């Protein structure tokens, strides 16, 4: 298969989604600030959306369902970002830091 | 609730009135002058640097009395004169008289504060304020005016 014909193959999109998902996981593990983790989790959500859209385009009988599902994921992501922002601000107000290392009240 | 809508209404009304005013101004003629291309005449009371007044023959009206030099608080004026003899007919016979003639009238405009004492003190009205305002230079020597020379240039 020609490299210029990649956009007509389901596998391309699945591999891209897997790579983005891996980046998200990597970010979630290595980041040590709450905002950084929020950014990484957005990558994970986008990877899931790409998967859904790819299957929607190539295998699903009704292509509108996947789009509706992706729209719902976007709504949830927006809600998540808003709540993440407010939690970050609340944490910063109480601890004067958003580093996960400093948020260790239960450390004993 | 009524206050809410009346506030919106009066706000809009005031905005429309403001727009009307600027719209009217938009079509009025401009009042500013595009300066380097056209200039306006200075008013009579404008005080530029001083200038000598000429008499009917085109000479300086100044009688070289030196009052202005003395009146100037910052010593910006320096003048010099020489005496010349001239003949005048008095009661049928010729007499020789002396009079002072101005040979140099320098104004150092860098120290002048435009107070006008010189014009006030002149008893014969030989100096006046010029209407000159385009004065700009990088050299302070450009502001040492030779007023007699300027008078000559004006006449020529």
């Amino acid at each position, binding site marked *: 298969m020609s*490299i*210029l*014909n990649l*956009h007509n193959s389901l*596998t*391309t999109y*699945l591999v*891209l*989604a*897997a*790579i*983005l*998902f891996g*980046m998200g*996981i*990597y*970010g979630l*593990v*290595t*980041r040590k*600030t709450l*905002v950084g983790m*929020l*950014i990484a989790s*957005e*990558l994970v959500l*986008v990877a899931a959306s790409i998967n859904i*859209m*790819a*299957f*929607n*385009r190539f295998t*699903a*009988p*009704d*292509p*509108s369902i996947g*789009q*509706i599902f992706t*729209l*719902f994921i*976007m709504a*949830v*992501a*927006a*809600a998540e970002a*808003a*709540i*993440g*922002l*407010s*939690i*970050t*601000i*609340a944490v*910063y*107000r109480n601890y004067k*830091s*958003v580093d996960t*290392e400093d948020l260790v009240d239960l450390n004993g | 609730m009524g206050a809410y809508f009346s506030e919106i209404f009066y706000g809009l009304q005031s905005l429309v009135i403001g727009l009307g005013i600027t719209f009217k101004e938009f079509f009025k003629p401009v009042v500013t002058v595009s300066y380097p291309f056209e200039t306006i005449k200075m008013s009579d009371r404008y005080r530029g640097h001083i200038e000598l007044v000429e008499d009917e023959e085109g000479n300086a009206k100044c009688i070289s009395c030196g009052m202005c030099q003395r009146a100037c608080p910052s010593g910006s004026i320096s003048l010099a004169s020489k005496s010349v003899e001239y003949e005048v007919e008095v009661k049928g016979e010729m007499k020789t008289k002396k009079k002072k003639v101005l040979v140099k009238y320098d104004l150092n405009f860098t120290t002048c504060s435009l107070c006008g004492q010189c014009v006030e003190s002149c008893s014969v009205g030989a100096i006046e304020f010029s209407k000159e305002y385009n004065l700009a230079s990088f050299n302070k020597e450009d502001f040492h005016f030779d007023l007699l020379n300027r008078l000559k240039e004006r006449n020529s």
Partner: protein
Amino acid sequence: MNLMDTLYSFLPDVLTAEGFAGIADEAAGVVFLIMLAVTVAGGIIACNSERLVRAVAGLAVCFVGVAAIYYFLNSPFVAMMQILIYIGAVCITIAFAIMLAAPEDNKKPGPAGPLSGPLGVITAGLVTFGMVGLAIKTQFPAMPKLNMGSVKLIGVQLLTSYSMVFELVSIVLLIAILGSLVIARHGRSK
């Protein structure tokens, strides 16, 4: 249209309608490759950058690429919503979070822990490897299309078959707004 014909004769074959039909698919392929690169590059910046603002900018770049990929997947509506919601709302919200709560001056450098770097690479690598393997090995049977998935159809289905989900999402959004207000305003009056 004489002027148009004259202009046509000066054009290289690629740009004329007949010439372009031959290479249209290749052109789309090139654009697709560029957008893949943009997406991956944005993702790398987003998860690796030291400065959080750069990470958000990378996230925005990644989302632009993803929107283009949605466009390739026959859904321009979702592509536009992706830009509108993710870049116009989510990225800006996160950037606000950075400005309000993460001053970069007192940031401690280095990874989260001694093992987190390698651990992260191993975890992410394993997950990615597994998913890529699955994606390449599995055969996904395609089913015949019932429709083209137009914007109108999305709207109709959103308000008929999936109206329950629609209402639930709106409630989730409402709760998110109220909850974030409550959390963020708590203790603000002091």
